């Protein structure tokens, strides 16, 4: 029996080829007629105007950041969720305290308008 992660490694390595083979087949089977118009950026059928960058918006950054905080929180909550059942009730309360502290942070971010899509 091989170890768990060895299988995951093999699986992920093989799954690189599952999309690669059809894409290679597409490259081989399709015509190759590059043209000036084909190489242009697509902008709803009209001529391209202006450089290709967009306006910065604080919402993107804030959503990613709040997601990061909650992601770290959940990584801590998973071992707790596995183990709380073998302890008396105080273990459950400790986790609830953890969650409530972060819930307070969420409410703070909400009240300050950080979570609104501008």
């Amino acid at each position, binding site marked *: 029996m091989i170890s768990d992660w060895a299988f995951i490694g093999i699986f992920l390595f093989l799954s690189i080829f599952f999309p690669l083979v059809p894409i290679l087949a597409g490259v081989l089977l399709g015509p190759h007629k590059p043209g000036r118009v084909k190489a242009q950026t697509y902008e709803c059928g009209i001529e391209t105007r202006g450089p290709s*960058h967009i306006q910065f918006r604080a919402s993107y950054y*804030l959503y990613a950041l709040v997601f990061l905080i909650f992601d770290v929180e959940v*990584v801590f909550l*998973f071992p*707790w969720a596995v183990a709380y059942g073998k302890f008396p009730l105080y273990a459950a309360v400790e986790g609830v305290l953890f969650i409530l*502290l972060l819930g307070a942070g969420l409410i703070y*971010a909400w009240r300050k308008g950080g979570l609104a899509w*501008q």
Partner: protein
Amino acid sequence: MTVEQILFLAFAVVGLGLAVASVALRDLVRSAFALIGSLFVVAAFYATLDASLLAAAQVVVYIGAIATLIVLVVMLTRHELQDRSPQAHRYWPVAALLGAIVFAGIAWGLSQYVFFNAAPPSLPAGDAVAALGAALVDPARFLIPFEAVSVLLLSALIGAVLVAGGSKEK
């Protein structure tokens, strides 16, 4: 050379290459993705050591959250951060030599430690995740750091909202 050693060396070479690429590439977005690749190699190291929770957490937190944040910010601000200066310093061979000497010194110093050739300690039997959870919840062990982490995350959240702003809610 056992299979584990070959695997470790292969991962190490790939990881080091990606890390060097992350520092040396001129295109910021490509170097951000090279950073993601090297983080993935670290997760692969954790997996070869059977540290399942750490490997999964590395991908979930580092690659899924932190690296996404970095890539997002790099893509949004790239035009303000255009760097036209050459990537290599004029005296980079001297710096490389100094770096190699420091590395050799540290490697020699580490090899003099007792634990360098010792066998790794055997892991306790049973599920590692349950053991970690039990340790986090036990008041005699890691309960205070567990709750302190939530306070730390709370302060990070407050700081982020204060710095990045947001309009005032009514």
